[in-house]
């Protein structure tokens, strides 16, 4: 993005963050879940939000998705204040963000195909395009064979992958993951994490990853996916490179207590963080 300067030269203006929370406070009843939280996600970044249960992580995601409204402060998507946006603007912004819910939240009365196609058929996309796109995203998560199954016939890990495919079908710029590996065994979790890393590194999708599982968080912060000749390899971070675009945010009782890369998080001497990552 650039802007004409007074003397005719053009100066670069930093683009607005994809998602921004400005001093957001949120109450559920009398409980303050978020207390003046500010947060920004720029294009190409991935932020991992850590925190114990009830620290306000999921609420943060719901605010970003516009599912909840803040009691004070602002939520901005690509510079547009959700509190002031009209229906038309919201319609344009929603497909830019995809969300994977904690327990997948698949529509259990619809088949896998209908679940993944949901967003496209709602906006009246033609049948052929829908078929192609659904096959493409199901192919990405490795579930082309399950296309005609019902959610009840799928395992927990498969459901998560279908949920991922459903969120990806509109080719979002940002993905929000609400504990995508909760309740899964380590091997299935690994598979989900690899998909998320591939999305980040191969497709350039930004992300907000909410979790309380450190193992997943550090996997995400220390591995990259490299595609060569149609094959994807995962390389673990060592002395030779580090991931500059993946950052940690730590919440405690609705406040941000840490923001930075994993190396700094590991060295932190804050008692709560030490206890959390121990």
């Amino acid at each position, binding site marked *: 993005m650039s802007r004409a300067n007074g003397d005719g030269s053009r100066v670069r203006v930093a683009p607005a963050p994809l998602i921004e929370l400005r001093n957001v406070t949120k109450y559920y009843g009398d409980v303050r879940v978020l207390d003046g939280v500010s947060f920004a996600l720029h294009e190409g970044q991935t932020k991992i939000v850590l925190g114990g249960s009830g620290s306000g992580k999921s609420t943060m995601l719901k605010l970003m998705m516009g599912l909840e409204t803040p009691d004070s402060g602002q939520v901005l998507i690509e510079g547009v204040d959700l509190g002031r946006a009209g229906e038309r603007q919201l319609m344009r912004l929603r497909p830019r963000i995809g969300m994977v819910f904690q327990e997948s939240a698949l529509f259990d009365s619809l088949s896998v195909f209908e679940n993944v196609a949901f967003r496209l058929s709602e906006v009246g996309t033609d049948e052929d395009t829908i078929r192609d796109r659904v096959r493409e995203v199901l192919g990405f998560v490795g579930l082309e064979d399950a296309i005609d199954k019902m959610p009840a016939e799928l395992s927990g890990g498969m459901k998560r992958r279908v*949920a991922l495919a*459903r969120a990806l079908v509109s080719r979002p710029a940002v993905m929000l993951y609400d504990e995508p590996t909760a309740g899964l065994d380590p091997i299935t979790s690994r598979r989900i994490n690899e998909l998320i890393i591939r999305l980040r590194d191969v497709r350039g999708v930004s992300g907000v990853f909410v979790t309380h599982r450190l193992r997943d968080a550090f996997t995400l912060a220390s591995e990259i996916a490299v595609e060569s000749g149609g094959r994807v390899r995962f390389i673990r971070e060592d002395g030779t490179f580090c991931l500059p675009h993946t950052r940690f945010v730590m919440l405690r009782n609705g406040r941000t207590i840490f923001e930075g890369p994993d190396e700094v998080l590991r060295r932190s001497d804050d008692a709560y963080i030490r206890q959390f990552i121990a």
Partner: protein
Amino acid sequence: MAGMLPSPKAAVLEVQETALLAFRAFRRAFRKPFYIRDILTQMDHVGVGSLTIIMLTGFFTGAVLTLQSASEMSRFGAVGLTGTLVAVSLVRELGPVLGALMVAGRVGSGMASELGSMIVTEQVNAMRALGTDPIKKLVVPRLLATVSMQPLLTVVACSMGIIGGLAVAVGILRTSPDLYLNSAWNGLDYYDITGGLLVKPVFFGAVVAVVSCRCGMRTEGGTRGVGRSTTQAVVVSSLLILVSDYFLTQLILEYSP
């Protein structure tokens, strides 16, 4: 829900929220997209699905009404008016009210538990995240289906009631079918038909749909919450049907000559 009674403030708030939902659903019913397929599915579920219980309800109500009234009427030598009594009670009150109560039990509970489960498994949030308005997609089709099906079901209930009455009148009381049917037909006037077979069922249908959807949508607290919402939907819509029936009747009587 410690006991059935909420605090006055919560009760007022709940009435406001329910009215707001009714208003929103009504407004959205006229806006695109129309979700024709969802509406038809719901109509099939509400209408065709309830047919058997509505027929049985109607038949036995008419039958028992005939049995009870004929013995009373014979004391005044007015057995010939049994048809009138049965038809008028059925069309004015029992058909619409019992029909609506049966639908509240069968359909209302289903709506509340289905929407409630969708809430607790975050399917409704997922729907919103995918850019679809849950009121439009979930509430409007259910409202339109009940409002359009309830009058038809009431007609079925009343017809079956008159047939049930006929069966008893002819089979047990040995009156002539012509006498019974003529007296039934002559007893009804225009206002009985519009009031009992149109105004009341449409209103009751809307009550069942709006109350049940609202109960479903406000579900919290997991599977237990779903159970609670289901009970609430049936209790509240049944009560509202009975209370509003009184006022609707008063209104209809005022307008009929």
